[in-house]
């Protein structure tokens, strides 16, 4: 791999041990990829989470954040002091909600450690947005920006919807990128790799968040990690639908980039999206394919007596929070049912200040931030059967928790929370 003088100097230790370890990791990683060089990044989104048993294992002091950073953010056996980030850097979703940690099953000590880690890494330039959707709370790159982002649902949104350029990075590579400003120039950083190779003909209307979730879930199964262009989308989606769509496609497959001509920024036509080439594969998405996606998510479920409803994966926007408040206003959850509504902490603050949290919580629900059940594996006590409006959550929760999980529209899920029965249907 060819390094610039500045990169070589970092590798040689001229800017300290931490950057030397970071460049060593980026070099090993870049050579594994077969990359020829590094690229400068405009923004980093990763994780500095320091409270899980796994990162805490073997530490003499739980607040030994230098050791945690060295091991898990740089893959370094030598312990180095954490330097300041050199590019704007934010924390993605993590395990502990610093307000509602008790409901999640965490202790006061664990919440205190979480807060201490936020102060420690915060003072080194990590902004604790604490959400899987940094683009909803001001961490919004421009078209053409090179990024080093984790979180598959955020990566596909950044590439496809915003036109920024990032691969799906990991904890170690984003840690190294934050203090060097570099990432291997590979994959979606390279313009020639951003064209579609699959054409998907959409033959049924896709007009709601549930529709877009099912389309995304089917799409991931069709194209795996390849890039599709979608033809036949007649309805202009809301940003939240695209957020769900990308998250679903990145769960059932590895979709990191897609084109919808006339909507997404990098192609105005199918031909342009394909880079002038013929599609390698043509798929159709009709009623049968939509039904199959529903069955893949729900087909194994037998019990409909839901007692936990999870909303907000990826984290809800302010608009979604208001919609949930409207549906819950003046009502009470069914006895024995828990409803957790997830949104970034900045949006929760907005909901607190504008009375939305109060409406939602008056119904017996909880407004959660910073985390989600799939990330921290914490469910309300006694959870037996789950319902969620997220394909991503419905994809992962059965594997993580062993509990049957229904996917449905928002209204299906709210109805389940109010009645204790899931009555969602694909139509």
């Amino acid at each position, binding site marked *: 791999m060819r390094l610039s003088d500045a990169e070589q100097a970092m590798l040689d230790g001229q800017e300290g041990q931490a950057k030397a370890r970071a460049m060593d*990791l980026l070099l*090993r*990683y870049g050579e*594994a*990829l*077969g990359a020829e060089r590094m690229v400068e990044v405009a923004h980093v989104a990763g*994780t500095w989470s320091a409270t899980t048993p*796994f990162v805490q*294992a073997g530490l003499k002091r739980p607040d030994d954040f230098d050791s945690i950073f060295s091991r*898990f953010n740089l*893959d370094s056996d030598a312990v180095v002091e954490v330097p300041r980030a050199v590019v704007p850097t934010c924390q993605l979703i993590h395990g502990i909600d610093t307000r509602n940690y008790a409901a999640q099953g965490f202790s006061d000590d664990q919440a205190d450690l979480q807060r201490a880690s936020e102060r420690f890494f915060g003072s080194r330039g990590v902004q604790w947005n604490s959400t899987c959707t940094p683009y909803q709370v001001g961490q919004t790159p421009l078209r053409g920006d090179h990024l080093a*982002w*984790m*979180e*598959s649902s955020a*990566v596909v949104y950044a590439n496809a919807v915003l036109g920024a350029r990032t*691969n*799906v*990075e*990991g*904890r*170690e*590579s984003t840690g190294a990128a934050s203090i060097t400003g570099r990432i*291997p120039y*590979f*994959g979606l950083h390279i313009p020639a790799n951003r064209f579609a190779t699959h054409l998907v003909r959409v033959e049924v209307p896709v007009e709601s968040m549930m529709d877009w979730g099912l389309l995304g879930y089917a799409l991931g199964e069709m194209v*795996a*990690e390849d890039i599709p262009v979608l033809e036949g989308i007649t309805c202009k989606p809301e940003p939240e639908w695209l957020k769900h769509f990308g998250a679903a496609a*990145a*769960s059932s*497959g*590895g979709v990191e980039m897609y084109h919808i001509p006339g909507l997404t920024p990098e192609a105005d036509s199918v031909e342009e999206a394909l880079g002038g080439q013929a599609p390698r594969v043509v798929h159709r998405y009709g009623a049968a394919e939509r039904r199959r996606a529903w069955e*893949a998510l729900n087909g*194994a479920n037998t019990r409909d007596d839901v007692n936990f409803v999870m909303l907000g994966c990826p984290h809800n926007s302010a608009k979604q929070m208001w919609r949930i408040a409207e549906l819950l206003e003046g009502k009470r959850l069914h006895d024995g049912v828990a409803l957790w509504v997830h949104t970034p902490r900045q949006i929760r603050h907005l909901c607190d200040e504008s009375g939305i949290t109060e409406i939602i919580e008056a119904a017996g629900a909880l407004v959660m931030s910073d985390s989600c059940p*799939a990330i921290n594996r914490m469910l309300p006590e006694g959870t037996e059967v789950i319902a969620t409006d997220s394909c991503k959550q419905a*994809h*992962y929760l*059965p*594997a*993580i928790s062993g509990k049957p999980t229904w996917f449905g529209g928002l209204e299906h899920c709210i109805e389940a929370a109010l009645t204790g029965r899931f009555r969602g249907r694909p139509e």
Partner: protein
Amino acid sequence: MSAPDKTDQTDMTDQTDMAGETLVIQGRGVVGGVAEGEAFVTRETVSGWGGIDARSGTITEQRHEKRGESFAGKVLVFPGAKGSSGWSHYFHATRRLGTAPKAMLFTVMTTKVALGAVVTRVPAVTEFDRDPFEVIEDGDWVRVDGDKGRVEVVKRPPRR
């Protein structure tokens, strides 16, 4: 990379007659080092976060053909990574918990699988001169040289 050693290659037309024979596949080394072990072969991509239990090295993804089986101490032969960006962190976890695969052979390069292999620190090879899924089956003994990109496969005796 050195050229494949043709003298070691065997006609693949009838795998059942090849028990005990050594076959060689040449690829590009991704992570250096040498390791050997029993093959754990899946033609399905693997999710890291949410798809494996790092404490036991077991595949947990619903509907995965290898659900409930562990790759710990085996040579993981798979197309590559899918799903969440927690992939590298969870394979990193398998190294620290002693449940990592002995080596990784994969066919589709992505940032997830590359970073995962790097931080798992086990020999890894990709870009093969022949399809490893046509050559390697569960239970074969596989020796991986990540420095040379060379993979030696000793076929297991056929099951009767």
